[in-house]
């Protein structure tokens, strides 16, 4: 598919709906149904919606890629662009990712919230103001769209008097620190990642007798210097960590960032990475929704991919 089309669709949908895919906004905070977390506080959990959105984004990308390959693909993509300019929600009924995947990702967010509540029950959640960060726009260099979107997000934080946020994935953490700093005037939000926060406490996570391979996300290890924090938490539980040949600062990408631009490239890179990881153990820890989704496409049936939050909440 033409990279220009993908960028145009992504930018238009984000500006029109606030999300990179045209879905109902309540999907972002449905994980918090029946979960006891405050609406107001000094520090806010800001998921940036990435975990919740990944099933929808991947479904949409595959759908667009398949229609672009049809004989009338170009016309269909042009039609999609026109529809999105009129009302993106016309397309929402065709986006139907697996319920299992949606539930799994919501469970990850709930697990992270459980960990945060355990260290400080006053941590609050933004609910309807837990807006997508716009990180895909930033990474693609769609600065015109990103500039508008990031200012909207900042304004919603200001309206709610948010001063400090806790982020839960590498991409959102990075864009809230570096991207927003560059594009939003007077940006003064303090950003802390949940793994950084937890590793600075004496949280008792109990013990777990397991051997696991760790997959460092590139953005944590090379952009945000988050390498030791997850290891410290896992070791505190007595977990034996296996390091693949490429780990920590030298980690190898899962291929996920190219999923929308070249599914074939993305899959080939994921295959290389899963082989490196499985040479250590059958159970792999991920810390990013993009890594987990991309590696799960190529993993053999016997292998297990687990988000770190599931391990950290094993005894909670």
């Amino acid at each position: 598919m033409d990279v220009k089309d993908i960028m145009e669709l992504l930018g238009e949908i984000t500006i029109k709906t606030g999300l990179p895919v045209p879905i109902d906004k309540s999907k972002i905070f449905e994980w918090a149904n029946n979960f006891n977390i405050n609406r107001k506080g000094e520090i806010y959990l800001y998921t940036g919606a990435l975990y919740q959105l990944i099933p929808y984004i991947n479904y949409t990308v595959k759908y667009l890629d398949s229609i672009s390959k049809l004989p009338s693909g170009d016309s269909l993509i042009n039609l999609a662009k026109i529809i999105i300019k009129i009302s993106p929600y016309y397309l929402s009924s065709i986006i139907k990712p697996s319920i299992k995947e949606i539930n799994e990702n919501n469970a990850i967010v709930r697990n992270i919230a459980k960990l945060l509540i355990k260290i400080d029950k006053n941590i609050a959640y933004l609910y309807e103001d837990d807006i997508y960060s716009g990180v895909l726009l930033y990474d693609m260099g769609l600065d015109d769209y990103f500039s508008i979107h990031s200012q909207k997000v900042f304004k919603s934080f200001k309206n709610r008097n948010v001063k400090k946020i806790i982020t839960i994935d590498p991409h959102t953490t990075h864009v809230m620190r570096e991207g927003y700093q560059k594009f939003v005037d007077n940006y003064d939000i303090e950003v802390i990642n949940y793994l950084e926060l937890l590793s600075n406490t004496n949280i008792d996570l109990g013990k777990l007798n397991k051997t696991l391979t760790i997959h460092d996300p590139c953005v944590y290890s090379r952009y945000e210097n988050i390498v030791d924090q997850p290891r410290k938490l896992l070791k505190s539980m007595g977990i034996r960590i296996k390091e693949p040949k490429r780990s920590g600062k030298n980690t190898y990408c899962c291929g996920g960032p190219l999923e929308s631009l070249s599914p074939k490239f993305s899959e080939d890179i994921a295959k290389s990475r899963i082989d490196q990881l499985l040479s250590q153990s059958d159970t792999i820890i991920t810390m990013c929704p993009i890594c987990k989704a991309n590696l799960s496409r190529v993993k053999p049936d016997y292998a297990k991919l687990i988000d770190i939050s599931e391990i950290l909440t094993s005894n909670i």
Partner: protein
Amino acid sequence: MKVNIKSLYDEVNRCVYCGFCEAVCPTINLGPHRGYGPRGRVNLIKDFIENKKITTEFLASVFSCLLCDACLIVCPAKIDTGRIVRDVRSIIRNEYKSSINEKITIRER
């Protein structure tokens, strides 16, 4: 925010063509030419800044980058290709959007 082309140019100009980056890049072996690796990216960007010409190879090079920054760790000149590529995407978008008529596609080898 406007990308500072002068500082981008200074950074890509530091490349000493050693090729250490090519050993760690996940995309170089998948693409049909060296523009699918960091050394190629950096030097195509340098050429683009000097000559203001956009080629199919240059676009594929810039858009096939994962921004994973594996290359930064091994680069003796500490060139941050991930951040540079992001900024160049922004320049293409802002200044050359209307002059790109052909499709931007990532080709497999």
